């Protein structure tokens, strides 16, 4: 019987007090616990950024890789051993700047992993530069006269790329966050969850208060209707939806591939070369 305590890491998080990442740490541990998944079978792969320090703070097999590159590592771990529950966890700078092409292609490949982005709309660890989701007009260290680039819409992007589970949650709504993560992990295929995660130090615009006033739970939407999901993804302003926008069960990359569909690579026997294998060279 797995308990929440099993997921407690040995290292104490060094995030700023009040950081949105704390709620996600609890939600990921809680979701895995409630799904009865043991820590030994859980892998958290991260990139670089404040949120990406997560693998140290949770008792799983953690892999803290390179900025923007968590998805290819996570995908290959799943291909190697499909008994593992693989969660990719990183920030908006990590995933939507340097990691953009991986985000796109992992979505379209529909690899059976869960990708959670702690989206604080700012660079935190590097002390407050504009990120790909920073709102227009916002003053940051790198945009002293206000950001002049339109923010990237991660939900719209994931839908276009072909992700089969697209959701959004908010660190200030812990229970809902955990339920969304649970659904994402349970979804067979690529699950993308964008989490509003207020940066209490460097983002004075998108604060807990900002989101509390605006977010509402999606209810009754047709999760299989991608056009409806696109419309929901465009909502921004006084009311901002959180919840599962889109969920569709399609064959995964692993289902299609002739080798992976036979089983995980780790249990594949190694081919022993014989003279017959060389006949084509004779």
């Amino acid at each position, binding site marked *: 019987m797995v308990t929440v305590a099993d997921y407690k890491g040995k290292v104490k998080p060094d995030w700023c007090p009040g950081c949105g990442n704390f709620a996600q740490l609890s939600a990921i541990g809680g979701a895995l616990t409630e799904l009865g998944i043991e820590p*030994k079978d859980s892998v958290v792969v991260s990139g670089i950024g404040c949120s990406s320090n997560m693998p140290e703070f949770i008792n799983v*097999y953690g892999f803290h890789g390179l900025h923007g590159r968590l998805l290819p*590592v996570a995908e290959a771990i799943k291909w190697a051993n499909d008994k*593992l529950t693989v969660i990719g966890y990183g920030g908006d700078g990590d995933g939507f700047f340097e990691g953009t092409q991986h985000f796109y292609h992992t979505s379209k490949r529909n690899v059976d992993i869960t990708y959670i982005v702690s989206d604080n709309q700012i660079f935190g660890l590097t002390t407050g530069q504009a990120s790909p989701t920073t709102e227009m007009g916002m003053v940051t260290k790198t945009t002293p006269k206000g950001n002049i680039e339109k923010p990237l819409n991660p939900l719209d992007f994931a839908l276009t790329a072909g992700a089969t589970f697209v959701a959004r949650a908010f660190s200030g709504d812990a229970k809902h966050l955990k339920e969304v993560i649970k659904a994402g992990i349970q979804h067979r295929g690529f699950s993308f969850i964008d989490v509003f995660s207020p940066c209490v130090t460097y983002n004075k615009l998108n604060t807990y208060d900002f989101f509390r006033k605006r977010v509402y739970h999606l209810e009754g939407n047709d999760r299989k209707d991608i056009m409806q999901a696109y419309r929901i993804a465009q909502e921004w302003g006084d009311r901002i939806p959180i919840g599962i926008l889109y969920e569709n069960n399609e064959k995964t990359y692993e289902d299609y591939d002739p080798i992976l569909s036979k089983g995980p690579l780790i249990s*594949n026997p190694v081919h022993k070369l014989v*003279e017959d294998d060389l006949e084509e060279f*004779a």
Partner: protein
Amino acid sequence: MKGTEVIVRVAGAAGDGVQSAGLIIAKAFSRSGLYVNTYNYYQSLIRGGQSWYQIRASHDKVKSQGDGLDVLIALNKDGLERHTNPMINEGGASPLDGVAIFDKAITGYARGKATYCEMPLGEIAAKYGKNALMKNTVAIGAMAAAIGLDFDILSGVIADQFGKKGDVADQNVRAAKEGYDYYGSNFKKLDKDIQYGNTKRYMMAGGEAVGLGAVSGGLKMYVGYPMTPASSVLHYLASHADQFGIFVKVSEDEISAINMAIGANYAGVRAMTGSSGGGFALMTEALGMSGMVEVPLVVYEAQRSGPSTGLPTKTEQGDLMQVIGASQGDYPKVVFAPRNVEEAFYMTREALNLAEKLQMPVIVMSDLYLAEHYESVENLDLNFKIERGVFAKDNDPDYKRYEYTTSGISQRALPGQPGLMHNEDSDEHNEYGAVVSDADTDPTLRRLSMEKRMRKIKVYLQEMPPTETYRYSDAEYAIVQWGSTQGVVEEAVDILREKGIKAGAVEINRVYPLNPDMGKLLSGKKKIIVVENNYSGQINRFLRSEFLVKTDLITKYDGESFYPGALAEELEAVIRRN
């Protein structure tokens, strides 16, 4: 060129079927019990240009494409002139003084000193089928008659080549036979003493040998991104994925490819990636991560002429500094540079074992020449013991992923193993994998972790075999080569020896770290001459700095390989220079 060997060249434009004709000829030689060695001269285009394919064969081992030319099959006028007229000849290959076989439609060409065998190639081909390329088969038949090759062996190769196309195979065999007979009735057989036999050998290119070596080494996943000349490994493995049960993936970029290979290895699956210099440049950050997190990794790096996009279909050894210097910071890595096709097979699988044993990146360097030219391979040892290194036992409450051991090698734990959960971190970390770079940067732990990783190199150096040499025991002049230039350098040494010059070769197939025995090997020589297929002499600089030796340098950076005769002349000039 000896009378016991034969050199055939097929020349034409891209799209003329130059390479497939060349491969049929090479295979026919190989099945006739001859050693073969091929050379492919082509451009990065699908139609047009000027390309040629050379096949050298002999009863004795042939180590390079050789000098001279016996038979030219010219598929267009440009090819005929370029390879028979010394004034027009380009590309470093010797002009022909043997026979040139070409279609009678080619007229008004500038003549050289070759014997011009004008044949109705197109007319003969038209009798058997509509495919214009069948005239190549007619020419191949004529070539067989010119050098006394057994037609039955040739017809077997042609039948195999077109085998899947039913009637087409038969049409081609008959077309070749008419070419064979036509030549016999109209032209003279070459005065050669080629000793055909029936020894069975395989004919393989370096890229295929790397792929096959990887299979032998227990590879389960290969991930890459297309780039000449690394793609041949990707192609070989992709076309044999089912046969070998290997998962082959082309990813969105090389950064993804290397990170995927790292992810799979982390989870316990032997995986490898590969690219040419440009793609490798994109991989370098992750290469350092493999060193830092101590995840085993093998990367295949096939060099082509650089810098930048460079000459995509031309050879060079210009990436050595890039490969040994790749990625920021100090971390242990090993770089191999197999000297020939057979060694590409053995070193690839050795790299896979070594990477897991030492938990570090191992790079196997090749180049376009090695990757794409065919060589005879015999007596391949298919037995291989896969060594996975050390793993922790389940449920260790004090498990230290990066334990500071004497060897520097610590026990791995794979996700899924109970009671060994830990963090693998690209940040500097302590024995447990906990980061020492953030809240409490610890200079002592940093030092210990760095030293732990670097100690693994000592393990490698202790088990490193001695540097290999050629005709070196009494050598007064040391000719130093690395990687694919082995064959041509050995042949140049032979030429010098025939002239009474006591030269011998020092051959480097383990380019990083260099074998410490090199210092002793190079001492007391009249001259040390380093031969490299690049502009600046990259291993030359490295040798000088590591062993404080005085060297001379011979380079070539025109995109082509060295030729034995020309290289021997250059070496002799350096040797005679005061």
